[in-house]
């Protein structure tokens, strides 16, 4: 509750900051302080201290998992702002407003991690999405940015329509928005709602699949990620996507069983399609930014395992995955924003000219590829282990397919490393400060630390 209120207030405060000052570094500092405050009040919630007590009438329900996820997302945002805050203020004309929108997105995230009612799900998704449409078009003089924004809006609206349609069907047949109240439906003597309720749920799931860019609902992703200002792509690809997954898992926790066994075939098909589209298409890309868009689809395929199996291990896994994937992606995009040429060739010879950038970038890419000693390895490991734990040898084929696609991903991640280290070239790069490099090194160290002691992060989750 603290997080929802405080993030909304911070958003408003950021808007006013934009009126009072145009000093970009002051704006950034305000944002950093607000984020720190956000993390603190969210942690306070865990200890039962509330800024304002609100009776939500069971529309929201707070659990350790959701709160921890909030902390993780806020911390990732903080890293993002510390690393790319300058690029946020430089992305378009209005510096403070972008931060305000980011805070609103965080507000949406906070709702999505604790909603207990389909209405709150809808509101959370919309609060999350609408600022993103604007952020995508932040570079308003750039045609590509405008196009991406419009596309995102059109397709986002379409998916919202599907979501609403689903909610309507479910409400119509069950008479309640509460996902909690629907839970006993699986027990003995539950009313049979016929076909409409599951179809409604199916629609809701499809809308969520759209949000997490699972194939074949992923089409918006490459165009939007490519067109949006790089710094906001970074934000969308990490923080927003992770929030989509958490809302998905929350709903699935309650309702998956009602979907019948068909879901056990639909979801694997979607996972494989996502892995296939993401990984295979990424192979041929010439632009690193677009490659990263496809890579985010591919990573979503892995994260979908946490939806497919729903146990403690997969929850630990999705947390680890969020942390690993967000840190690495934020790092890569931060470097990408400083590159003049964002094709693979643009990275040629980076290791000679900027060894720190190249080395940290290599660590991030290795983590995304899931190489041991990096966080990405354990993230993938937990996901696959959760699948095996839940379904035994029967799901082994799925694990094997996933690992094969992970092998394909090595190809395009290593293309960047190859360009940086083994090719000659004169990479053009805008000014990088010492602080920027320090932050990158810290991110890389964090990745290796999580990759070496993953339990340290997860133990924190259980306090």
């Amino acid at each position, binding site marked *: 509750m603290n997080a929802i209120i405080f993030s909304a207030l911070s958003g408003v405060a950021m808007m006013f900051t934009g009126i009072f000052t145009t000093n970009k570094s002051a704006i950034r500092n305000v944002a950093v302080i607000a984020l720190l405050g956000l993390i603190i009040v969210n942690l306070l919630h865990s200890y039962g201290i509330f800024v304002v007590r609100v009776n939500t009438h069971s529309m929201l329900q707070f659990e350790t998992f959701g709160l921890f996820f909030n902390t993780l997302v806020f911390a990732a945002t903080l890293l993002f702002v510390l690393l790319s805050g300058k690029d946020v203020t430089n992305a378009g004309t209005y510096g403070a407003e972008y931060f305000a929108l980011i805070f609103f997105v965080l507000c949406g995230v906070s709702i999505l991690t604790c909603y207990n009612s389909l209405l709150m799900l809808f509101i959370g998704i919309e609060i999350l999405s609408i600022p993103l449409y604007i952020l995508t078009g932040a570079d308003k003089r750039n045609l590509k940015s405008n196009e991406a924004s419009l*596309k995102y809006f*059109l*397709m986002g609206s*379409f998916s919202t329509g*599907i979501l609403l349609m689903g909610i309507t069907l479910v409400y119509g047949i069950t008479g309640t928005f509460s996902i909690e109240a629907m839970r006993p439906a699986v027990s003995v003597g539950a009313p049979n709602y016929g*076909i409409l309720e*599951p*179809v409604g749920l*199916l*629609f809701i799931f*499809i809308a969520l699949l*759209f949000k997490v860019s699972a194939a*074949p*609902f992923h*089409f*918006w992703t*490459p*165009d939007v990620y490519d067109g949006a200002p790089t710094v906001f792509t970074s934000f969308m690809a990490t923080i927003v996507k992770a929030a989509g997954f958490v809302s998905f898992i929350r709903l699935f926790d309650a309702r998956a069983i009602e*979907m*019948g*066994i*068909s*879901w*056990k*075939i*639909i979801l694997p098909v979607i996972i494989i399609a996502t892995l*296939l*589209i993401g990984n*295979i*298409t*990424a*192979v*041929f*890309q010439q632009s690193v930014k677009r490659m990263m868009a496809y890579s985010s689809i591919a990573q979503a395929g892995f994260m979908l395992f946490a939806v497919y199996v729903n146990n403690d291990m997969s929850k630990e896994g999705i947390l680890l995955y969020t942390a690993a994937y967000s840190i690495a992606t934020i790092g890569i995009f931060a470097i990408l924003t400083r590159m003049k040429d964002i094709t693979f060739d643009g990275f040629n010879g980076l290791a000679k000219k900027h060894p720190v950038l190249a080395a940290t970038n290599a660590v991030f890419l290795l983590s995304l590829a899931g190489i041991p000693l990096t966080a990405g390895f354990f993230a993938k490991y937990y996901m696959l282990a959760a699948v095996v734990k839940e379904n035994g040898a*029967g799901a082994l*084929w799925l694990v094997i397919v996933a690992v094969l696609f992970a092998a*394909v991903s090595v*190809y395009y991640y290593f293309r960047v490393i190859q360009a940086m280290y083994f090719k000659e070239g004169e990479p053009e790069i805008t000014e990088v400060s010492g602080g920027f490099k320090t932050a990158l090194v810290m991110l890389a160290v964090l990745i290796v630390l999580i990759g070496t002691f993953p339990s340290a992060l997860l133990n924190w989750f259980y306090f």
Partner: protein
Amino acid sequence: MNTLAYLVPLFPLLGFLVNGLGRKSLSKSATGVIGSGVILASFVVSLLLFFDVKSHGATIATAFDFINGGSFKIPFAFQIDQLSSLFLLIITGIGFLIHLYSTAYMHEEESHHFARYFAYLNLFVFSMLLLVMGANYVIMFIGWEGVGLCSYLLIGYWFKNANYNYAAKKAFVMNRIGDLGFLLAVFWLLSKLGTVTYGDVFANYSKLSSADMTGITILLFVGAMGKSAQIPLYTWLPDAMAGPTPVSALIHAATMVTAGIYMIARSNVLYSHSEVAQNLVAIIGLATALFSATIAIKQNDIKKVLAYSTVSQLGYMFLGLGVGAYTGAVFHVMTHAFFKALLFLGAGSVIHAMHHEQDIRKMGGLKKKLPITHITFLMGCIAISGIPPFSGFFSKDEILAAAFAHNPVYWGLGVAGAAMTAFYMFRLYATTFLGTFRGTHEQEHHLHESPSAMTIPLIILAILSVIGGFVGIPELFVHDGHLLKSFLSPVITEQEHHIEHSTEYVLMGISVAVAAIAILFAISKYSKNPELGEPAGLGKILADKWYIDELYDAVIVKPLDALATFFKNIIEKSGIDGIVNGVGKLVTYSSRQLRLLQNGQVGGYILFMVLAMIVVVLIWVNDGYLYKMFTSLF
């Protein structure tokens, strides 16, 4: 005393690190002092440990858990008992003398190579100490691999010579073959007993079936074959003389080759309960002793003769182990360490004086020019020939007596081998030191006795070679005179054998007489007329080492090479590469096609989404029909 134990391997490790890392900046004298000093320090600590064990018994020092998995764990622990403390003294004591000697012998090397040499030497000693001190087979294995690595590094020390590199590779590969046996034995033990700690294994040996026991002991012996150069894995040791001479001394006397003896003596409880393995050990040992002795007779390289003599002496030790005379074998390790280190260092002194000439046909008459080397070398020769009261007599006699008790044929063959030993050693001695000088004028002009850093170790070793046997005087002469046996009795359960005293006198007399005759024959034959020409007939076969290297080459190396070539050219090029490249091409091709889905038209995207939704709903409406069909396929 627990903490003291850690110091023993720690000093050489420090020496290795300092010399290895500081090789570019340290002066030669600093390197020499550090390199020898750390071993001396280890030796001092070893002495303390030895006397501690003598008065207070064995201790186990556990540093930490090396491997900890569920119910089984392998501690990183050192066992300081009678056996290991004795080996510690041999390793660090002889090791120190060799280090000291090396400071002079290697003085012509460039300073960073000099430091590299000492770093390797220290690492070698460190590995050997680990091997001996470990309280379980895994720690022993770490040292076991370590000495293998160090021997590789040191044999190939002059890495610019391709032949030396080949010799180094050969040593490494041969050792690895043996190591596999050792590893399998350790795994076997682990799977049957769940522990590899000596104390637990030996206490629970009765839980092993006799088949297990035989399998494990034979596999361990395979490991020993590699490390201690027994048939069929012996060929690396003669080639190992490619390294600097002090390294040969280290490998042959103090470290490496004694590892196999140590390991079997350590596992004596297991071997005593497997007759098959014991017989195998005895037979292989005896065969190696005889076989390599025949080869040594016709070698003309001073170091090669000594190398084959080591193989032969190791064979005696294994014979001793095989007939249950574990103490005798350990005793022989000790005396052999004295006189073989002496002989190698003496040979080094000769080579040093002769400006790296190793062919004894070009020597002769060195007696006057190298008086200290000559007299000490002679001591070594007498000791190895088993003439009383020199050290070799006592240890060899103990093994032969036990062999007689076991099987008189073993004894007979053993004495024949001893005669050959005496013969080739004095052939070597006579050709090198007696007669007239046969080298060039240049060499004769520069002949000189070696510096004192080299002669002092020689003198010390010569003294040890002469008196070293008195710790094991047989019952026959002095009641309770076998100090070594009573010292080792807590760790080694001797298999009792009884021979009448009169018989023992006769046996002893025969072996000494035979050795003496062989010595006199060799001296009279070679002091005036050394064989200078190329040997013919049987001599040629012996000189060419029974063509064993060629045999291995034809039977193992060549077919393997052919197979590798086949795999490389056929399987890999068209098979593996084809698959790999094919997969890569498939991926890039499908990538190019899939990319076209992303055509930028929002309408198209939404169409795909709607189609997908319809499919999803259809699958659901089927109510698991597809799922059932799908699962029935598997």
